[in-house]
């Protein structure tokens, strides 16, 4: 199912009434992107779990006021972006401890195993985690989730030009982290 198909299947009224079963379905459908956003912003382990729980707690509290002016998924991701940015800022203030190792999905084989670009990829992921909130968000949604610029603009509530600028700036920052021969490698 695509993100948009997933939205259609969840009825709005039970969600507005905060029905736990409907909410569980909403979480199940949207948690990959929320977890991905947390991961792209450099969160790992318990921090990542905590941030995701806080995102969905905020979604749960806001459900009765959902006006359906935008798609449900867009609305959830909007809350996610705001919440993750806050959690990230809070974590940065209390930073100092070494980051725990990534807890990855054991059912999903890592494509890195046989990749010659493994080291370059890891450096790119680290560089994405060091981008600012909006830049990391657009990189995650555009390059990993294959969202269109238009959909990202709708989610971030900004013009398409702003998304393009964010993408350009983020790309330049990421490119600066790599040597020219790493980029040229087929």
């Amino acid at each position, binding site marked *: 199912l695509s993100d948009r198909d997933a939205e259609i299947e969840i009825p709005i009224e039970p969600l507005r009434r905060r029905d*736990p079963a409907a*909410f*569980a379905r*909403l*979480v*199940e459908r949207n*948690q*990959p992107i929320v*977890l*991905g956003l*947390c*991961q792209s912003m450099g969160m790992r382990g318990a921090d*990542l*779990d905590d941030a*995701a*729980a*806080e*995102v*969905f*707690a*905020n*979604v*749960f*509290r806001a459900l009765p006021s959902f006006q359906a002016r935008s798609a449900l998924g867009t609305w959830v991701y909007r809350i996610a972006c705001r919440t993750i940015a806050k959690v990230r800022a809070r974590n940065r203030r209390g930073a100092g401890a070494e980051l725990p190792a*990534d*807890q*990855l*999905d*054991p059912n*999903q084989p*890592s*494509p*890195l195993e046989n*990749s010659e*670009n493994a080291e*370059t*990829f890891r450096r*790119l*992921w680290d560089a*994405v985690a060091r981008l600012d909130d909006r830049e990391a968000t657009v*990189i*995650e949604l555009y*390059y*990993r989730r294959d969202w269109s610029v238009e959909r990202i603009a709708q989610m971030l509530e900004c013009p398409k030009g702003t998304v393009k600028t964010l993408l350009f700036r983020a*790309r330049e920052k*990421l*490119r600066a982290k*790599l040597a*020219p021969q*790493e*980029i*040229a*490698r087929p």
Partner: protein
Amino acid sequence: MTQDADDIAFETLLRGAMHARPQPAAATNLAHRAIERARAQAAAEAKQRLLMLTRLRRRNRFVGLAASLLIAGVFLIGGQRVYKSGFFTDSSTTSSISSDSTSSTTSSIAVPLGVAVTAEALVVALILLSAGPPDPRPAFV
């Protein structure tokens, strides 16, 4: 390599890197944890609001008491001044006082009376401002 080709190569590399990134493990019981957290947050906020209301109510009570004391004091002083000025005495008695002394007495009374009235007005305004609209909720114990 031209700039365009370089851009395309980097774009491809970046897309490949992002697609190759393993998805984080799904958190167990995330919906349940989120609901618990939301309820805890709501309860904490409600408690905070109640504490704030209690503080506000206590402050209003204190301001009301202070204002009542001030009103009483101002009435007492004002009343004494007015009584001393002979405002309540007969007009025949007043007329017997020479014009010079009358004018000097009037001017010496005018200032304290004005001060008293202004102070009273201020106190009433203070009470009205601090009391605010009536609270429709039952008293919080």
